[in-house]
């Protein structure tokens, strides 16, 4: 497939590794923020190809992983109500809340359906006017415009039986939290290309200059990631800290204006709790008051829950690049992808799950 295959070319990949090796003079800790990038790096064993000076640590960038237990519990609760059809992306169904997950709820008779797109959930609502159709929406800035469109369209059509249980998170505030931590080890970031196709990269320029940290917006194929690493190492060696765009075939500085416009219309920025990390200021999106009729929390009169996370899980440290998944005593024993205890083990894009799949025996 064009625009994929060429970015998996081994010859180019090895050439980039060579360049990195010749350039780097001292230890450099780099973080890829996005779980999709974590997955590519682990799958192709890129960390093992790199010179020993370059250490990759994995960031908190998996929206499935960081969805709080409380919201999962609410989704399970709504799914169990009579006359409700609960819809969500397939990734969300296995994710355990504090008691149960949506697959189990379905096995117990709840009407839970996987959708590929939020527009499919809208169609289910049109086809089932006597039922309440709830779309359990998670995601970063990449996914939020699609979810926003579903709500916008529901309002336009007056589709009163459609509502959204939303758990949207934003990337730059999480990077800020990592940078502000006094124990942070991260010297350079690979910023998530798909988030930036929507938002552009102005917000990252603020972080780069405020914290003197180089940031390269990177893609998702092995060659993309190696090129991003090369650009970061070059900046560090030259003492520069700016934003560079490795993913220029898909995005520019301004991002997607039509999508940003829709986001502003439907959502507003709010504080948000991240599973495994805790509350991060201004790190989420919630539905504006004008869309209250399509806000599942309002429709079902949900009250905020508070649930304790398993104590032995060190995911807060893993997601900030301070510890490796294998440093966790529960890793691969009490905590596996089938029985996840914490956020980074729940989706294949989480750092612990990626290690479990590709690096368990190292």
């Amino acid at each position, binding site marked *: *497939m*064009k*625009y*994929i295959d*060429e970015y998996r*070319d081994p*010859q*180019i990949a*090895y*050439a*980039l590794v*060579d*360049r990195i090796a*010749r350039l780097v003079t001292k230890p450099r800790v780099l973080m890829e923020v*996005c*779980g*999709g990038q974590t997955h590519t790096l682990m799958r192709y064993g890129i960390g093992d190809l790199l010179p020993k000076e370059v250490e990759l640590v994995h960031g908190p*960038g*998996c*929206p*499935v992983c960081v969805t709080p237990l409380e919201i999962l519990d609410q989704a399970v609760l709504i799914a169990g109500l009579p006359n409700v059809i609960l819809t969500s*992306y397939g*990734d969300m169904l296995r994710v355990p809340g504090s008691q149960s997950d949506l697959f189990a709820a379905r096995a117990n008779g709840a009407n839970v359906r996987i959708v*590929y*797109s*939020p*527009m*499919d959930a809208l169609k289910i609502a049109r086809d089932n006017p006597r039922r309440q159709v709830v779309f359990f929406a*998670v*995601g*970063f800035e*990449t*996914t939020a*415009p*699609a979810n926003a*469109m579903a709500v*916008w*369209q529901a309002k*336009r059509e007056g589709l009163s039986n459609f509502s959204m249980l939303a758990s949207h998170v934003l990337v730059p505030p999480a990077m800020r939290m990592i940078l502000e931590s006094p124990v942070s080890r991260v010297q350079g970031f690979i910023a*998530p290309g*798909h*988030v930036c*196709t*929507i938002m552009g990269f102005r917000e990252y320029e603020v972080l780069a200059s405020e914290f003197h940290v180089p940031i390269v917006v990177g893609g*998702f194929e092995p*060659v993309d990631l190696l*090129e991003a690493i090369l650009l970061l190492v070059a900046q560090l060696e030259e003492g520069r800290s700016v934003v560079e765009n490795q993913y*220029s*075939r*898909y*995005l520019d500085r301004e991002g*997607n204006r*039509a*999508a940003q416009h*829709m986001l502003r219309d439907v959502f507003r920025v709010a504080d948000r709790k991240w599973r495994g990390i805790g509350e991060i200021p201004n790190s989420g999106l919630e539905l504006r008051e004008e869309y209250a009729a399509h806000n599942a929390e309002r429709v079902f009169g949900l009250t905020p829950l508070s649930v304790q996370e398993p104590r032995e899980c060190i995911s807060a440290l893993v997601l900030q690049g301070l510890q490796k998944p294998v440093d966790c005593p529960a890793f691969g024993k009490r905590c596996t992808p089938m029985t996840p205890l914490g956020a980074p083990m729940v*989706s294949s*894009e989480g750092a612990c799950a990626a290690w479990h799949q590709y690096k368990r025996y190292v």
Partner: protein
Amino acid sequence: MCLAVPGRVLNVVGDDPAFRSANVDFCGVRKNVNLVYTPEAVAGDFVLVHVGFAISRIDKEEAARTFQYLQQIGALEEEGLAR
């Protein structure tokens, strides 16, 4: 979760801006994709698709430029000429 896949626009359908969509080919698999966020996309374009929405259109010149540069790196290293 943020996985987005490039596909080629075969033909554009509909004129309601909220529902302008396209048949998009992903290596032989065809899907209907919402074009509301890439109003400029036309048949023959490559678009990046995420949860049923095209979120950006490929800049072909930019893609060619980057790839030429990458290939150059590959060729140079191969011959041991780079430094």
